[in-house]
């Protein structure tokens, strides 16, 4: 009798849990489904379907025409390439620079460490939008050693989209918090064995930092991939524009071609999903391997 009751309870609990998870999954998946399905429909059907569940189903006049039209309207390949390039380089450099900064804050003993870290934390409350104008003026005056010697001004380049976003307080803070929780004995054992700080960083600390690398990378990827205002201000040349600015090719008119917009959004969402899903696996593997005491 008792066993039957507890089995029923367990069944009920499981059913409730799955129901909640399903609901959450639906909330998250439906916008993506709506976008993908709409990208296959002509505008008129797309709009008329929005009052029913048909909006989420591949029914009616289904074709890839919106995709062909979108590719004709905008150089999508160039935009996606630019965004992936800028985002990819920024993410890699962020991981490198911010983890090194975090390492210095946690493991190296230097005067003024506390003060510098406090200033760094204070920068977290400043929104990027408030510094974009001074940053723009600064970027327009900055020198750079190019193929033809020293050039002045960073506007209309990849570097102006990358360099200002490499070091940021949030990423450094994430690394600092994670490094603080690493077993101190691992670092001390490395020092006793004769490891240099660079060796400790490269061979001990970073291989154990999978979770924070994944977290920092995902956050930076999303931030960079979604950049709109900054590239709109600093980039005029079409060949180095990122995807979000490219969206303007579809909306700068009276009649918005919703099917093409949806096709464009579907295409530019693919790199984000691919990146997120690939890092999610790394994230889980890292948690599994570092969850070991000693």
């Amino acid at each position, binding site marked *: 009798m008792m066993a039957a009751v507890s089995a029923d309870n367990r069944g009920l609990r499981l059913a409730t849990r799955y129901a909640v998870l399903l609901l959450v999954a639906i909330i998250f998946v439906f916008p993506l489904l709506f976008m993908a399905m709409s990208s296959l429909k002509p505008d008129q059907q797309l709009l008329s379907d929005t009052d029913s569940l048909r909006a989420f189903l591949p029914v009616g006049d289904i074709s890839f025409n919106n995709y062909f039209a979108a590719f004709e309207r905008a150089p999508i390949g160039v935009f996606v390439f630019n965004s992936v390039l800028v985002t990819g380089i920024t993410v890699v450099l962020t991981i490198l620079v911010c983890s090194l900064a975090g390492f210095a804050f946690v493991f190296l003993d230097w005067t003024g460490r506390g003060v510098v870290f406090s200033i760094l934390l204070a920068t977290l409350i400043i929104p990027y939008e408030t510094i974009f104008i001074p940053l723009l003026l600064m970027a327009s005056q900055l020198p750079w050693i190019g193929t033809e010697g020293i050039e002045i001004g960073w506007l209309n380049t990849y570097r102006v989209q990358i360099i200002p976003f490499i070091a940021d307080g949030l990423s450094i803070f994430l690394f600092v918090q994670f490094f603080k929780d690493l077993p101190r*004995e691992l670092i001390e*054992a490395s*020092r*006793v*064995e004769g*490891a240099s700080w660079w060796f400790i960083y490269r061979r*001990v600390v970073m291989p154990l930092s999978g979770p924070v690398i994944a977290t920092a990378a995902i956050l930076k990827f999303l931030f960079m991939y979604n950049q709109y205002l900054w590239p709109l201000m600093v980039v005029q040349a079409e060949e180095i524009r990122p995807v979000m600015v490219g969206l303007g090719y579809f909306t700068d008119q009276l009649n918005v071609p919703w099917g093409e917009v949806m096709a464009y959004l579907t295409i530019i969402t693919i790199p984000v999903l691919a990146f997120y899903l690939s890092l999610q696996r790394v994230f889980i593997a890292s948690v599994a*391997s570092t969850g*070991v005491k000693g």
Partner: protein
Amino acid sequence: MADVLLKAIKKSYGPVEVIKGVDIDINDGEFVVFVGPSGCGKSTLLRMIAGLEDISGGTLEIAGRVVNDIEASERGIAMVFQSYAIFPHMTVRENVAFGLTIAGASKAEKEAKVAEAARILQMEHLLDRRPSQLSGGQRQRVAIGRAIVRKPEVFLFDEPLSNLDAALRLDMRIEIGKLHKSLGATMVYVTHDQVEAMTLADKIVVLKDGYVQQIGAPMDLYHNPANRFVAGFIGAPSMNFLDVEIVSREGDSARIHSDLVSEITVPAWREGVPFSGRATLGIRPQDLRTVDTGGILQGNVAIAERLGIETVVDITLKDGSRLLVSLPEDRVFEPGQPVELGFDPARAHLFALDAEATRNAA
């Protein structure tokens, strides 16, 4: 020659002084154990020898070289940590070879040295595993393996067996003892477990509140503790202490008595023991015996623990104070049962009342 000499070593954290001028001579090949209660400074002292803590005052010499300002890696030491400190992302082989990798050893050299260490520690079959696939004892073996491949002059152990269960601790203790004999290296070992200290050490350093209380061979500390603290710390169960009055004193012996103790003559060679007035009498539980009549002490049994090979009896004296008696036999006692206790006065210890504050008593 890997002697380790600590001369007037001090350590302060801001205004707080935790090591208050320590002098210790550790000879080449000696197994020295630092022992003491939590917070006595034993681990700090070891970490100062390792180079993981700065030295605030005094001189530290290893193998005839002052190493106060020399990096940990340059001191010719290897350290085994309480938490093992083995790298979870590396295999056992990579962990053991870690120091060799840093030193730029060739693959063949690494293979040979790792194989040698694995043979000594009987872990050849574990080399390709990850730490997560090892038991606590196996992980500690890996940590020791990493220490021995570099052939350091001095091994430092920071409570290496504290995370292991009792049975494993005994096994590893024996293995560390064997390792010391086979390598012949200088070893400095920190523990709060006096059994580990007694069984492993050539020389024990007893520390309390940043001071050395006594340095000596285990049996020397057991039979001739310099002060009440050492007497209470070394030996299990702990020594019993009773307040007594010195009636008279002549040379190295004193006549004492109290309300609880009939008048007897006990050795009184310790520094600071007064010629008259109050003092502390120490008697080891193993030195007490039950007698039928004419005992030196009288009391009632509170509780008796029968351990088979011995019986530990907790006795309440008439003033309410407690006394432990360890009898080398299996005996039955009833709670409340009156007992008379006798002991050989020559085996008793007399301490000055405030003898714990002795500095560098060695």
